């Protein structure tokens, strides 16, 4: 940069000298003022282009860094969300939390603790067998079983809503043991504070 500036000044001085010489001697070989001006402009343009390129490089670097950070954040949020939304399943005509469901709830508990602004709606569902009305009540009991478990570990009841859909919203529309086992479940929906989540287990 400095060199270019020096070069430009030297050229300018030379041009000035030759003009004076010309006026004095009137020799035809020296650059015309137009040429000098054009050269100056070219130099200026090159300088600006270089500056732009540099700024762009820096911006790209910054954006890349930001992207990486956002991606990590998204990944963390997604992981946390996945943990929160993971379904838990129940035995037939039962609302007791099974042992593997307890592991799932334990992970949810950690996420809920790390994200105190998160609120959940827990939906109880049943399989198609039995009376439709009884299943509505059973779904409610399943939803509240999860609420009670989480409350037992200090999660405020204000953060947890419940609703039962009974047998109305099956995950799998089929009438066999596998389908029934899939349909006896709690769904967990994040209803607030879910835009950015910390995942204490990840990173």
């Amino acid at each position: 940069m400095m060199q270019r500036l020096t070069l430009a000044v030297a050229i300018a001085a030379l041009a000035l000298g030759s003009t004076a010489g010309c006026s004095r001697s009137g020799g035809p070989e020296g650059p015309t003022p137009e040429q000098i001006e054009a050269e100056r402009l070219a130099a200026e343009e090159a300088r600006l282009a270089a500056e732009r390129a540099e700024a762009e490089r820096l911006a790209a670097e910054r954006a890349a860094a930001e992207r990486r950070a956002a991606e990590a954040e998204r990944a963390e949020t997604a992981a946390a969300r996945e943990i929160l939304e993971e379904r838990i399943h129940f035995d037939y005509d039962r609302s007791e939390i099974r042992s593997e469901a307890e592991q799932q709830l334990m992970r949810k508990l950690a996420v809920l603790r790390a994200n105190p602004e998160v609120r959940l709606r827990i939906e109880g569902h049943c399989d198609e067998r039995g009376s439709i009305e009884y299943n509505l009540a059973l779904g409610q009991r399943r939803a509240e079983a999860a609420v009670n478990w989480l409350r037992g570990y200090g999660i405020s009841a204000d953060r947890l809503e419940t609703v039962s859909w009974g047998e109305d919203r099956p995950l799998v529309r089929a009438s066999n043991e596998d389908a029934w086992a899939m349909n006896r479940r709690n769904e967990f929906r994040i209803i607030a504070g879910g835009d950015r989540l910390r995942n204490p287990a990840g990173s």
Partner: protein
Amino acid sequence: MNPYLREQLMQSYTRLSIGTPCRREVGGPGRRSYRSLSTANVGARGQGAVARAEFEAEPGAGGGAEPGAEPGPGLGPGAGATNSSCEQMAGLATNSSCEQRPTGSCGAPHRAGGGRFGGLLALATGLVGLVVGWPAVAGAQVPDTTMPRGIQLRLVYETQFRPRLAVQPFTAVPGGVGAGAGAGVGAGSEAAGAAGVAGAAAVSPGLRLVAEEVHRIVQRDLDYSNRFDMLFEIPERLRTGVGEYGAWNALGVVYLVTGSVQEMGGGYGLRLALHDVVYGSVKEIRQFSLPPASDADFRMSVHAAADELVRWATGEPGIAATRIALSRQRSDGTYELLLVDSDGENLRRVHTNEAIYSPAWSPDGRRLAYSEAGEEGRHRVVERDLVTGEVRVVSDRGFLAQTPAYSPDGRKLAMGLWVGGRMEIHEYDLARDCCLTRISQRSRIDMGPSYSPDGRRLVFQSDRLGNPHIFTMPAGGGDAVLLTPFETGGPGYFTSPSWSPNGSQVTFHGRSSGGIFQIMVADANRPGAPVQQITSRGRSEDPAWAPDGRHIVFSGVRDDGMGLYVIDTVTGRIRPLVTGGRFRMPDWSPRLKRASDLAVSR
């Protein structure tokens, strides 16, 4: 023969018959013995007839007398069942042979007598013998020496006997000309319907169509009452004109219905007559006023007239003039609240919602209570006025409310309400429009209440023993009594109870021995007594009683799909009501129109 006794016998016709009438086959020997008596009486009343009947009744003589039904003096109604095939039907504790039973194999209980042998009581009692030893009765009077000695007469109360009934095509009578007396049967006249023939030329085709439609409705209503052995194929020569009771009698017909329709005051006059073919006389006759055929009330009015016919014949009105409320889940998962007439006609939508459960009729038949998905899907109980369309929410606190049931006086609405982590039975005071009061306690899920007809008790389901079971308790709250068989760790699972409107029976659905849900019936006054399973095919759920306490509507899955079905608990006969959709949770209305509503101003 002793005239007093004969009189007694004649009067008892509808109640008593000779021999053991309930057999294994349609039109079995029991019918024959009854009919032979009829024939004898129509042909030659008096001693000869009785003597012949006695002969038919002689054990073995009829070719099918029940060997186990020995005559015994002094046995009154309820004294015990004979070992006829009907008894097996009565004791269908484990599986129902009734469902496969051919129609009409064992008839309806006859209700002409003072005693009421309705519904499952009849089932439980089976073929109750009013078995009268001839000498015991005769001994009280002057002995009739013309009686052959050694022959015994057995009179059997036929709890499941269904008299044969025919409905002659109705005549269309031109207005004005035949008004009044021209409509057919005059009291005492046997020429019912004959008058219509003379004026046939002046009858408009429209009127004839109306007469045909009315005939179709009446005939089907009588069939669906399950109290008659219907004769659908009427010989050509008997399709018009009457007068020859002998010909009807030869067909085994006990009751003949004739009718005529004429234009009257913008609508129609329907004249119906019930002929007692056995006596050879008109038992009842009356004119009913019907609205125009385009009127929404037309079919219901015809149903009410048909119900009156049933009352004439049996002493108790039919249930045709009723509707069933139901819920249907559509393919997109949402629900419709629907109404359908008792004969499966006139299916129509009242309301749609994300979810609509368990509609219940108010005792006046004007309102429906049901639960629907309210805010964020939570069920709440609402009451809808079917006339004005007005809706009010009646579960104003708590979290989740469902399974409403009206008290018989219509002042209270019981329901299952989720409060504090449990569902308990609560009563809402409709009269004061307030005050949900908890009446059950200490359970996890108590729901599905249904009041006894006197309003003093409730049947409901509770899972306080682990699985859902059926309990009864005082309506205001109190000790609950377990009704369904309980086995620790057993597969017992009984839900959706409904208390019979005229007795102590309770119906519900439960897991059968095959693990499939079927309709069951228990006696509310005999906790622990065997529960009767009354369906056996496919899957059957959500039972609700008809106002006669004899029919039950339920939702079922059968080979031909899903729908609502009606079972007659006496004969075991089942008919589809609406099929081809996820029709669920039916409730049967009270009688919505009575014969007295069809007053004729003359």
